[in-house]
């Protein structure tokens, strides 16, 4: 099966010379359709950088990012933008929403940017907002919504355009534990019930525990990986095998 996302020897260096920061050092990662992957690691280990490169928000120093078989690094800005619009949904920690647009308009934004007819875009946005439990908040501006509600709008927005993958960078970083839990559960639901592929960056183990697979990042490298037993048998045995390898 072709992975939704795969990276090959992905590296990213910020700055140069003495002040160069090696944010990523050769990342090889593949995400299968329907998988819910969490990336964990201490702050500054390169989690966000990885997400940005996969999302085509930044360009790698070397290595490749393949989205459904298409090499992102070979596309120009407009092509990457169009790809982002159609194949990716983003949820960030802060500044997720455009402050002057209401929830419905925010959720419909990527589709409108993609040239969909506004009526259809709003219809789809409304459906998704209702599914994430924001039916009664459609016309509220972001400033009138709680942090958790804002993230829900962002999630609805990410879902509405039916992207291939949802990229979330610390979506709960700004929320209290109860709201965090709810968002994490929502993501879990999106994965299990609606079959979406999710790449979630977090440093909160409680949130990461909802994922099917956890990738541990340290100093720009993948140091460990855990596949949850509930996912399926072969993968569990695969991970056991892997653990053995690490041990040897």
């Amino acid at each position, binding site marked *: 099966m072709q992975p939704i996302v795969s990276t090959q020897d992905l590296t990213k260096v910020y700055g140069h010379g003495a002040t160069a920061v090696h944010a990523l050092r050769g990342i090889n990662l593949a995400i299968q359709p329907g998988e819910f992957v969490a990336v964990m690691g201490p702050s500054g280990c390169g989690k966000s950088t990885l997400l940005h490169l996969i999302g085509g928000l930044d360009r790698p120093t070397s290595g490749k990012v393949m989205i459904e078989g298409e090499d992102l690094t070979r596309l120009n800005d407009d092509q990457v933008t169009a790809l982002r619009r159609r194949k990716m949904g983003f949820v960030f920690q802060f500044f997720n929403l455009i402050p002057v647009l209401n929830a419905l308009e925010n959720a419909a934004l990527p589709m409108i940017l993609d040239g969909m007819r506004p009526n259809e875009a709003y219809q789809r946005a409304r459906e998704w907002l209702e599914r994430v439990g924001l039916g009664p908040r459609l016309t509220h501006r972001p400033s009138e919504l709680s942090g958790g509600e804002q993230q829900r709008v962002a999630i609805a927005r990410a879902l509405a355009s039916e992207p291939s993958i949802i990229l979330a960078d610390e979506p709960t970083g700004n929320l209290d534990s109860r709201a965090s839990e709810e968002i994490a*559960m929502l993501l879990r639901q999106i994965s299990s019930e609606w079959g979406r592929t999710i790449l979630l960056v977090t440093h909160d*183990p*409680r949130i990461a*525990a909802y994922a099917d697979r956890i990738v541990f990042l340290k100093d720009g490298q993948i140091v460990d990986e*855990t596949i949850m037993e*509930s996912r399926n048998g072969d993968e569990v045995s695969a991970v056991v095998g892997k653990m053995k390898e690490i041990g040897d």
Partner: protein
Amino acid sequence: MSVRNAILGLLSQRNRYGYELLQAFQAMAGGRETWDLKPAQIYTTLLRLKESGLIAEDETCSSELPEKRRYAITAAGREELKRWFETPVRVEPQRDEFFLKLMLALATGQADPRRLIYIQRASLFQELHRLSTLRMELDPSTSLAHILLLDQAVMHLEADLRWLDMIEARLEEVRKQPIPEPEHRPRGRPQKIAK
């Protein structure tokens, strides 16, 4: 200790049969998976309570079988229960097996401490994932008590995971420091340092 006090508490509600007490305890403690109590443990506890005069057997419907006997709380029992409610629960100081493993790995060099951490972490995450899944299946409008109990476990796991992160981050530093050894103490009274 807590089983004993729980029995006192359940009997203070109303008089109960032995089997009834077992079921009530398990329901309250969060189900069989959470606290699997053997019937024998209940009956020995009941026996001891009766001997200390904290409960009494209901003579009107006495039976041979312990589960068919009916018990009631005595005044002394109520007194004891009140005391229990008013003293805080003491938390046992950490006596952690993983810690021992890690120390031994460091001291003996027989295993890679980092690998220990990864294996432990994977296991903790599996458990966390299991509990999270369990928790998602519960309906907060009816099973909140259970959810809260799960939360406690989740938080303990979370704390353990954070602790592992901390160990991982500071592993190199720990390595550089001497492994704790028993102090070489001379026998007899410690000498006073003359001044």
